[in-house]
C-alpha cells in the first residue's frame, strides 16, 4: 500500500512538471517582445527573434574584445568587420563567425589608434575612422594603406574644431560622409579626393512657441546677454548607415530641441522619413535597413526596435525586444548592429560579445509579409499576413496589410473589416467609399423604377381626383 502511494505521488509530481516543460522555450528568453495597439498601449506579442548564442573573443580565438564600437557586414564580400577599438584592431570574420584575419597594422607601418568605425566598399576598399590619430584612413582589401584623408579645412568649420571622426560612409561615386564627434552642423561631406565641400544633412531644430519667444528676446537683448541664453543647436548624430539605394540613415541619441532621432537623408541631405522615429528617452546608437525594414538599437533601454520605412498613419508597424541585463539576449552597452541573412547581430561594448538573434517562425512570417507589402504585392502578401495574425491577433499591421490586399482585389467589405480591426480610419474611408458606390449602383434600378412608378401613379391619381371633383361640382 505504501509503495502504491509513493508511486502515485511520484507520477503526480512528474505530471506537475509537464506544463513547465511546455513553457521551456519561452522561459529561455529574458525579455518580453511587445508592439503597440491602436490606442498606443504596449501589447505583448510572440517573440520575433530569439537569442541563439553570444560570440566573444574566446570563441573567435583572438583574445577578448575591448570596447568594440562597430560591426559592419559586407554582403558583396561575405565578410564581417568588427572594430575592436580598445585593442586598436579590426577583425575580419566569415559569415559563420570564424576568424578570417586580424588587422592591427596597415601595411606601410601605419598603426591604428582607437578606431571607432569602418566602411567597406564592394571592392574591399576600407575606410577606417581612426579617432586616436584624428584622421580617416583608406586601405585596400589586402590591408595596404592607400592614403590618409587630410583633416578638413574650411572657413565653415568652427574655430575650436576638434576632428574626432567616429563613423564614415562612402557612396558609389566615392564621396565620403564623415561623422565627427561634437559637430552638430551635420556630416562632413568630402569629395572623392578628400577636399571638404560642405556640411551635409544637419538635424532639424523645430520651431516651437517657446523658442519663438526666446528668439524675440534675443533680438531685443544685447549681443552679450543673448549669448548667455540657451542656443538652439541641432542635436549631433550618433551613427550612420547607408542602404543599398544610397540613402544615409542617421541616428541621434535623444531628441532635445525637437530633433529627429532617426533621419533618412537623400543625396541632397534632406530628411525623407515621414515619421519622427521615437520619443525623447530613446538613445539610438545604430540602425540597419533592409527591404524597407528598419532595426534600431536603443542604448538607453538596451532595446532593439524593428519597424518599417513606410508607415501608415496611426499604425506603428513595430516590435520591440531586448533590455538591459547580464543574461544572453540582454545588453550592457550595445554599440552596433548588423543584419546578416535575416538574423540580427548586436555588438556590446561592455559585455564584449556579439549576440546572435535568429528569426522565429513568427518573425519570418512578418518579414515575408512586410517585404511583399513594401513591394506593393498586396495580394501575394495575404497568406503571410494571415499566418502573422494567426500567431498574434494583436499585430495591427497584419490587418492593414490584409485590408490593402482585399482592397486591391476589389473585395471592399472584407477590406473594411480588416481596416476596422487595424483601427486604420484613412484606408477604411477609401474602402467604404468604393463599397457605398457599389451599393448605390446595385440599388439604382430599383430606386429609379420605384420613383418612376410613383411619379406616373401620382399623375394618374391626380387626374382621376381632378375629374371626380369636376364631376361633383360639375
Amino acid at each position, binding site marked *: 500500500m505504501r509503495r502504491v502511494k509513493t508511486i502515485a505521488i511520484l507520477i503526480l509530481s512528474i505530471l506537475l512538471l509537464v506544463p513547465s516543460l511546455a513553457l521551456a522555450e519561452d522561459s529561455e528568453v529574458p525579455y518580453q517582445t511587445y508592439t503597440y495597439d491602436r490606442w498606443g498601449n504596449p501589447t505583448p506579442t510572440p517573440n520575433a527573434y530569439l537569442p541563439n548564442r553570444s560570440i566573444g573573443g574566446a570563441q573567435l580565438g583572438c583574445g577578448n574584445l575591448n570596447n568594440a564600437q562597430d560591426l559592419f557586414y559586407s554582403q558583396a564580400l561575405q565578410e564581417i568587420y568588427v572594430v575592436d577599438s580598445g585593442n586598436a584592431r579590426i577583425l575580419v570574420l566569415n559569415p559563420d563567425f570564424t576568424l578570417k584575419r586580424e588587422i592591427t597594422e596597415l601595411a606601410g607601418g601605419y598603426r591604428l589608434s582607437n578606431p571607432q568605425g569602418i566602411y567597406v566598399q564592394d571592392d574591399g576598399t576600407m575606410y577606417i575612422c581612426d579617432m586616436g590619430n584624428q584622421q580617416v584612413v583608406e586601405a585596400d582589401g589586402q590591408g595596404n594603406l592607400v592614403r590618409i584623408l587630410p583633416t578638413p579645412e574650411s572657413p565653415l568649420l568652427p574655430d575650436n574644431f576638434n576632428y574626432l571622426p567616429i563613423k564614415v560612409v562612402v557612396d558609389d561615386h566615392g564621396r565620403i560622409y564623415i561623422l565627427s564627434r561634437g559637430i552638430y552642423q551635420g556630416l562632413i561631406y568630402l569629395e572623392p579626393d578628400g577636399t571638404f565641400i560642405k556640411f551635409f544633412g544637419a538635424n532639424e531644430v523645430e520651431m516651437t512657441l517657446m523658442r519663438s519667444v526666446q528668439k524675440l528676446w534675443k533680438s531685443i537683448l544685447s549681443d552679450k546677454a543673448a549669448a548667455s541664453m540657451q542656443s538652439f543647436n541641432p542635436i549631433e548624430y550618433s551613427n550612420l548607415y547607408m542602404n543599398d539605394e544610397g540613402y544615409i540613415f542617421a541616428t541621434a541619441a535623444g531628441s532635445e530641441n525637437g530633433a529627429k532621432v532617426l533621419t533618412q537623408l537623400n543625396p541632397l541631405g534632406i530628411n525623407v522619413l515621414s515619421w519622427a522615429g521615437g520619443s525623447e528617452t530613446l538613445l539610438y546608437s545604430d540602425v540597419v535597413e533592409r527591404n524597407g525594414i528598419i532595426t534600431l538599437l536603443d542604448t538607453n533601454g538596451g532595446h532593439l526596435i524593428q519597424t518599417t520605412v513606410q508607415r501608415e498613419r496611426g499604425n506603428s508597424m513595430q516590435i520591440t525586444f531586448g533590455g538591459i541585463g547580464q543574461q544572453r539576449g540582454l545588453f550592457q552597452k550595445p554599440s552596433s548592429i548588423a543584419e546578416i541573412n535575416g538574423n540580427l547581430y548586436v555588438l556590446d561594448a561592455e559585455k564584449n560579445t556579439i549576440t546572435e538573434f535568429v528569426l522565429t517562425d513568427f518573425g519570418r512570417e512578418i518579414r515575408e509579409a512586410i517585404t511583399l507589402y513594401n513591394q506593393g504585392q498586396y495580394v501575394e502578401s495575404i497568406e503571410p499576413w494571415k499566418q502573422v495574425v494567426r500567431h498574434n491577433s494583436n499585430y495591427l499591421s497584419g490587418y492593414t496589410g490584409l485590408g490593402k490586399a482585399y482592397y486591391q482585389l476589389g473585395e471592399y467589405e472584407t477590406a473594411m473589416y480588416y481596416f476596422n480591426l487595424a483601427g486604420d*480610419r484613412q484606408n477604411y*474611408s477609401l474602402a467604404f467609399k468604393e463599397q457605398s458606390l457599389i451599393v448605390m449602383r446595385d440599388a439604382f434600378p430599383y430606386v429609379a423604377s420605384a420613383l418612376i412608378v410613383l411619379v406616373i401613379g401620382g399623375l394618374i391619381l391626380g387626374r382621376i381626383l381632378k375629374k371626380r371633383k369636376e364631376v361633383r361640382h360639375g
Partner: protein
Amino acid sequence: MDKVKTFWKDAGAGIRHVFYTMFHPVNGFDQIKWEKKGSVAACCLILLVFFLSNVFDQVLTGFIFNTFNPDRISVPSIFLITIGGFAIVYVSNWAAGSLMFSEGENRDIFITLCYALVPYTIFDLIYILLTNFANLEVAAFLTALLVIGFLWSGFILVVGMYYVHQFTFGELLLNLLLTAIGIAIILFLLLLGYSLIQQIITFVVTIYNEIVFRL
C-alpha cells in the same frame, strides 16, 4: 384619466413650442415670459435627449469619425458632465440674475437654457447619423453641421437671456460674464468640498481603525 390626457396634451404643446421658438426666438421667448407657454416636462425631455446624444457621440458615431476608445467610455461620467454641467450653468445664471435684479423667474431661466440646447442636440444627432454613411472626403461638411448647430444654439441662448431677464444689451453681457465667474466659483467650491469630505472620511476611518485595533 383626464389628468393623464391633459399631461400628454401639455407635453405635446410644450414640444411644439420648442420648435416654434427655434425658428421664432423673439416671439417664443415673449410667450414664455408673458403667456407662460412652454412646459418644464418638455424641457426635462430635452435634457434627456441632450444626455443621450452625448452618449451616442461616443457609441454610435461611425468608425471613420469615432476617436473614442471603447474601453474608456463611461456613461455615468457623461451623465455628470452633461446634466451636472447644465445644473451648474443654471444655478450660476439664476444667481447672477438675482444679483442684477433681473425679472427672470426660475422657471423661465430653466426653460430658456433647455431651449438653447435644442439646435445643437438636433444637429449633433444628424451628424451622428450621417457619420455612418460618410467617408473622410465629406468630413468638412459634417463638421460644418456641428458648427451651425453650435452657433444657432448660442444665438437662441443670447436672445432667450435677453428677453427672459429683460436686460439691456450691456447688462446681458455683464450677466453672461457673471455667470461664467459663478461657474468657476461653483466648480472651485465643489472641488473644495470634495477634498474636505475625502479628508473627513479618511479621518473617520482612521479613528474607527484605531478603536477597533485597541479593543
